[in-house]
């Protein structure tokens, strides 16, 4: 499943990049994430709850690793989620470029979905992933805004 | 695990009591707790229709209901169709028309047709096919089920 697109922040790339590396922010940008803690440099583990059609409240053990970090331009995020209802595995390439005083973020992710979620949730995977992406990006945008205004804390 | 909930259901005219988990499916309650194994389970996701029973006279998928939902209600299963030693006219018609082979989907089909015929005493073939379209059968190819319905309609003089 390919998930790609663009999002524009009002903050400059350096602020956005720093925010994207913050596990607290990452957690907020993935709806349903219950906890995300650092277990190593740029490596995080946590739990995430997802609902896809008839498979409701599927809990995933999440492992996220950030590599190929080139601040403030790009990085690669590897996601590994396993749970009772299936698994998801994928990589997202994120790159930032200035957009006036703000930042234009390009993201391109290739996600593999397997197990029960893939077996019975197919027709909804698209819809659900888009919905999650939308609310995730909104949360991300808000986090970045708060940082810019010096409001709220780093996780 | 949750506390069992007391329920009382009238099944085929008899009051049946139980103490069940909220998540117990009606199909499992009927088959295991009430010992009525005539209702069969084919998919547990409401598509095949094998688990069809009557709830207060209307056809429902017992795999999509929880036992607690029918507390105080009336359920009819295939075991309640024949009376005394005699088959229900629809059952007899199924036998006469060879409308069953392995018999696994049959109880669900019978319970689907009973309210249908009650509400449509003289159905056209297209209507019968549509009424049956929610019951999957892998053995018969449906043709004889339609024939069986026609026999019942004919013998009851269209009523």
């Amino acid at each position, binding site marked *: 499943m390919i998930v790609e697109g663009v999002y524009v922040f009002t903050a400059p790339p350096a602020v956005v990049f720093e925010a994207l590396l913050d596990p607290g922010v990452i957690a907020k940008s993935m709806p349903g994430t219950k906890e995300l803690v650092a277990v190593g440099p740029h490596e995080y583990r946590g739990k995430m709850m997802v609902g896809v059609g008839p498979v409701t409240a599927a809990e995933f053990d999440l492992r996220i690793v950030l590599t190929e970090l080139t601040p403030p331009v790009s990085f690669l995020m590897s996601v590994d989620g396993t749970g009772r209802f299936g698994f998801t595995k994928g990589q997202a390439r994120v790159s930032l470029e200035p957009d006036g005083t703000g930042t234009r973020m390009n993201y391109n992710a290739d996600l593999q979905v397997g197990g029960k979620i893939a077996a*019975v949730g197919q027709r909804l995977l698209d819809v659900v992933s888009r919905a999650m992406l939308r609310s995730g990006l909104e949360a991300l945008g808000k986090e970045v805004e708060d940082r810019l205004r010096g409001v709220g804390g780093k996780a | 695990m949750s506390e069992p909930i007391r329920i009382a259901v009238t099944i085929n005219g008899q009051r049946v009591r139980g103490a069940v988990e909220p998540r117990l499916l009606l199909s499992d309650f009927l088959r295991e707790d009430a010992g009525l194994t005539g209702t069969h389970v084919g998919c547990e996701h409401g598509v095949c229709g094998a688990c069809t029973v009557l709830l207060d006279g209307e056809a429902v998928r017992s795999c999509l209901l929880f036992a607690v939902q029918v507390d105080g209600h009336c359920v009819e299963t295939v075991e309640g169709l024949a009376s005394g030693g005699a088959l229900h006219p629809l059952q007899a018609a199924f036998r006469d028309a060879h409308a069953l*082979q392995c018999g696994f989907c049959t109880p669900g089909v019978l319970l689907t047709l009973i309210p249908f015929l009650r509400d449509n005493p003289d159905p056209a073939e297209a209507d019968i096919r549509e009424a049956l379209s929610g019951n999957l059968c892998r053995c018969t*190819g449906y043709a004889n089920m339609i024939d069986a319905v026609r026999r019942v309609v004919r013998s009851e003089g269209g009523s």
Partner: protein
Amino acid sequence: MTAPAWVGRSVPRNEDARLLTGRALFVDDVQLPGMLHAAFLRSDHAHARLVRIDAAAARARAGVRAVYTAEDLGDYWQRAPLLVPPPPVPGLVFNEATQVPLARTKVRHCGEPLAMVVAESRYLAEDALADITVELEALPAVTDLDAALGADAPLIHEELGTNLAAHCIQRKGDWAAARAWADLLIARKFRYDRGASAAIENRGVVAQWDRRAEELTIWDTTQAPIPIRNGLAAMLGLRESQVRVVAPFIGGGFGPKIMMFYPDELLIPWAAMRLGRPVKWIEDRQENFYATTQERLQLHDAELAVTRDGKILGVRDTFLHDTGAYDPYGLTIPINTQCTLLGPYEVPNYESEFTVVFTNRPIVTPVRGAGRQHGVFVMERLLDFAARELGIDVVEIRRRNYIPPDKFPYDHGILFQDSAPLTYDSGNYEPVLREAADRIGFTEFRRTGQATARADGKRLGLGIVSYIEGTGIGPYEGARVTVEPSGSIRVATGVGTQGQGHFTTFAQIVADALGVHPEQVDVSTGDTRSFGWGTGTFASRGIVVAGTACHEAALLVRAKALKLAAEMLEAAEGDLQLADGRISVRGSPGDAVSLAQLAITANPLRGAVKPGTEPGLEATAYFGPARGNAANGVHAMIVEVDPDTMMVKILRYVVVHDAGKVIHPVIVEGQIQGGVAHGIGNCFYEQLVWDDNGQLLNASLMDYLLPTALDVPTVEITHRETPSPLNPLGVKGVGEAGAIPTGAAFAQAVEDALAGTGIEILEIPLSPSRLFALVQEAERTHRR
């Protein structure tokens, strides 16, 4: 004998009253005191190394009695036996790799079992599945058949060093010469894709170990209770007589229920013995898509060499067959394909080569048709294309190639799935074709009907195809017939019944021999305690092999009864007649004795009997046919295709078939109607959709579409009877017939409806979106 014959009549079925009133016992209906329930943890990955599995938390959950992983099985962990050794075709390569009870080092398909939880209820067992931690290291999945054979393809069975499961070539005559001599060569590539058998009853096993009697009872939704008993007894270290396997009423078999030994069949009895409590496992529908076998994917590259008159000079077919992750059923399916391709035709030169490939998908074993539909599809399509290019009509090209009725028995010169030479016993094909063409109105349709409809904007198409179904193979079945003191007759045989009416048809056969009513004949099938010798219900052989055994046994009982009656009535055997359950002297109706009385007399409690006498009126007989026989038929259909939505509606479906003597016309028609429904499903509604990672994307009936009453027309069926010389009843099998040529008929009909678009249908299944894509592609090619 003045009593009417029962064979040939459509009597009401003996089993119906129980089935209709919900009193019939299916495996999930078995409820035993103290019964535990099992659930399986299954792999989410199609190909992965099993790094670690930890069931400690699951074991600790309240209500859980045991959790087993491969390690817990100890010496009991073993690969299942190979069920069907490959036939002795010269040069054949076969790599055996059978399934395991629980994955030990790696998993090879989605849904492969990793652990078994046994708990107080199925709900609790499923809860406990989430407590098991599994670490699977995903490996690249093998899903493409060509890529699987590539040099750097990931290996599914490392010890084999290849993903090639088998390679086999069967030859007849000289294909190269035929090719050189041909006036026309038709070459095409075909694809026939996977489907599930999807019986409405999923599989299940219940096992109970009686510690005091030291007996194990197993209820299993199997089509082969006797081999299951024999195999499990051996594996569990028990005597065969200590194990009873019961296949009670079964909610549809269709093939996958004859596959054995499924992991659950191996593990549930073992667990019951260890835990000292009965254990039940019932498959749920989602599991069924992985845990029960399926069939169909083959890729063909075929060529037909014909003369300008449309006479077949030869066929060459090279194909790949997907066997899934393991190959316990040997080469039955692809050999069926090889043989069935020849159909009812004279094919003087033939070269058929197949390669069986392992993939990371569930195991493939026979499903109704068992590889025959692929052979029929290839041959019928090649003939259709040849007919079009030669300007011969589709009926005529078939007629010209039929084996003439005076050439039987006809030896094709290659080996069949029973390892015997493929020989057709009897047949008379032309009248079948003519009748089908008449009934569907072929000539009128071609002359005016189709064009008239076109003018009205309706795209109608006609398909008419011919097939052979090899049925009634050995090795053997047996039956025991007993007259009880009450006068009722008891029949026991080793095959099982999954809806095809054995309780009635076998009763009819015995009733004829013993002059009683079929209602007085009680038939027991599928219980190893009632009858312990036999192989099972598969390959359309029940009535042929078991039915004949019932017939032979009944005749032996009849002979015993007449001999005893002759003594009692002091008459010559030749003067006796048997009717209505009584033997009487012809012309002297008062001199009579009932079968009941004879049965009692034949079993004295005291006194002396003549040496060599057997007590009672009972006999056992076995029947093993010299080889399988060949049933045949023609399917014809008229479809209407909506040019905008590409939705296909079947307007008429005609079947003219010949399965030898018909025991019960309505039951035979039911088998054909049901088979056609299955075939329609395979053609147009059902497709198992896999992604490149071996994930099944439609593992539910919401997305795997079984045909409904709105999708299956009432088939117009005509029987013809060319008896088989291979058994005394003259019967041939018919269980799979309806499903076999449906794909070929569908393709021809839809192509005919879409004539003018340039479309060629080389694949099954189709769907509205696929047809749309094919039409677009064809139009693009035409424009160039």
